[in-house]
């Protein structure tokens, strides 16, 4: 068990390193391979009107003439311990984790990310709880009443849920529930949980439901398939042969086994969402990480894009780690590995 945990932890560290190398390569190495020079890279930092000498000086200060390995080491060091930027008129201290400065706003990226994270986290956590409960319970009921009206109905809705994109369901539900009926808040009104939990939930209820509709559909189908399979296992027959009540057979023996693969996907889905739910945030005008990334892409603001990429990658790696560790808790056969 201990070796399993250590192995998973080490694997995560390695994975984070690989992710950072790849991110760095995409933003610094690939442009060079594509024909860029240190000067063209530095142009972005000084503006279009700068003279060739200024550009050259900036490229030198930012270390663009250094070998790639040195550049990576400096960049990685900035994330871990912080960096000092010499911009000519003095030295600017960028505290760890230093993800650079936005080209547009000239503000450091990290505080921006911290500012946006609560929106994205609130969205992801609320929606994931809803879809887990809704998806798994309808999946179980569908499996137990296979072929019934309920089963066909929910699976039909689930098919629609999987097929309809968020920007469609989101806009339709906004038009209907917010603008026509006035039941929910229109988009773009995030209230932090710490300010008012009720207002927080009210501001997010529609994005939650829209986002979880998509996932619930997927989870209902997965749970149904899993339950149909496990309920035919020999150990289910054994549980019945003991005289166990059917309800306990289903929940303690059937669902317990069927939930394991769903847990894996759940961890990864939540990890993915913590890096920003681009479509949902855009549809409901929520200032989360996803929207931040889109803004970065639209304005070609490289440090922003890079920051969100690393941030999201970090959560996906963490989600992977947690899923692996959860596996050991859920499935005793994994512990002896």
């Amino acid at each position, binding site marked *: 068990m201990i070796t399993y945990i250590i192995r998973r932890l080490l694997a995560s560290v390695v994975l984070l390193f690989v992710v950072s190398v790849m991110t760095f390569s995409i933003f610094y190495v690939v442009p060079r391979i594509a024909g860029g020079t240190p000067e063209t890279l530095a142009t972005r930092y000084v503006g279009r009107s700068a003279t060739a000498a200024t550009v050259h000086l900036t490229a030198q200060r930012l270390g663009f003439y250094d070998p790639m390995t040195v550049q990576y080491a400096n960049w990685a060091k900035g994330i871990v311990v912080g960096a000092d930027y010499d911009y000519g008129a003095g030295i600017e201290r960028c505290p760890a984790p230093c993800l650079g400065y936005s080209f547009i706003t000239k503000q450091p990226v990290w505080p921006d990310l911290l500012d946006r994270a609560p929106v994205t986290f609130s969205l992801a956590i609320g929606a994931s709880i809803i879809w887990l409960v809704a998806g798994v319970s309808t999946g179980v009921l569908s499996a137990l009443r296979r072929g019934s009206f309920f089963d066909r109905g929910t699976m039909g809705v689930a098919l629609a849920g999987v097929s309809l994109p968020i920007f469609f369901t989101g806009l339709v539900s906004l038009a209907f529930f917010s603008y026509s009926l006035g039941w929910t808040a229109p988009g773009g009104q995030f209230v932090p949980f710490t300010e008012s939990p009720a207002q927080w939930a009210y501001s997010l209820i529609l994005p939650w439901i829209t986002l979880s509709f998509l996932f619930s559909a997927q989870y209902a189908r997965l749970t149904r398939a899993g339950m149909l399979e496990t309920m035919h296992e020999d*150990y289910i027959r*054994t549980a*019945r*042969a003991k*005289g*166990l009540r059917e309800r306990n057979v289903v929940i303690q*023996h059937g669902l*317990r086994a069927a939930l*394991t693969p769903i847990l894996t996907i759940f961890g990864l889905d939540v990890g993915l969402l913590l890096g920003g739910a681009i479509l949902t945030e855009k549809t409901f005008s929520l200032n989360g990480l996803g929207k931040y990334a889109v803004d970065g892409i639209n304005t070609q603001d490289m440090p922003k894009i890079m920051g969100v990429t690393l941030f999201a990658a970090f959560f996906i790696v963490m989600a992977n780690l947690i899923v692996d560790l959860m596996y050991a808790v859920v499935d*005793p056969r994994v512990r002896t590995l």
Partner: protein
Amino acid sequence: MNTNAASLVDAGTPVAAGPFLQVRDLRVHFPTDDGVVKSVDGLSFTVERGQTLGIVGESGSGKSVTSLSIMGLHAPGTAEISGQVMLNGDELISASAEHVRKLRGKNMAMIFQDPLSAMHPFYTVGHQIIEAYRIHNHVSKQVARKHAIDMLDRVGIPQPGQRVDDYPHQFSGGMRQRAMIAMALSCDPDLLIADEPTTALDVTVQAQILDLIRDLQQEFNSAVIIITHDLGVVAELADDILVMYAGRCVEYASANEIFTEPRHPYTWGLLGSMPRLDRERTERLKPIQGSPPSLINVPNGCPFHPRCTYADLTAGASQSQRPELVEISRRHFLACHLTAQDRQRIWDNDIRPGL
């Protein structure tokens, strides 16, 4: 071998203070898109407490379906079950599902073929035994745990105090089957059904498990049904043997009779295909020709006739008429069109010397 005279009761006679388990004219049919699968088609037998019945037949002869119907384990709506199953005077086929559930585990228990897949991989062995015990006994977890450790000790698990917290995958195949037996016997059931209890096990472990079942049967005085395709398994254990073919009983007698005076060509075939170490090694084992019939289109007449070497001796009766199960001698039931003389002659001249 037990030759208790009361064990084979004529299936047609209702007895007030009847035998402990009496199955009468059991029929289990599964409607499918291709037609009705008649898995069990008119089966009758009895088992007394302290006695063992062996049900023998090839795969697909309806052995397991029979046991699952007694236990009430067919999913509702899938099987059409008729006939009577009387357990200690309690009729089970017409009883409510809830009533049968309460009897399961407590009055009747079952051991399954593959102990690895029959135990839940996510729960400890102890948890699964404790669960079985606490369904029918309102005791604390500590008491149930102590009972589980006792049961594991009883079935010969070494260091039961530690092994109780092991998961099924940490047990060997034989130990898993022992744990299954401990689980089945945890509520002291009156009827134990063992469905191919040794098929998934090593040969060396098979004998141990069979010994264990016999010892525990004597200790608990339970009625036991052993379902198997291996006559060698029931040779040791069974008092009576019922040979099944295509969902019906073809021969039913005491184990002694089945081994010394078998009368059905199918039983001869089963005996001939059984490896024997106590006999001279003459030639290859004799398999039964052909394969079991489809249970949707059971052959007309005797269902065994397409595979039977002697079907032509009956002047067409085997091909057209279904043989009834009749008592040919005391407590020996047979469904075959061969005349008594033919049967005796074939057995004496052709079959016995070759076994």
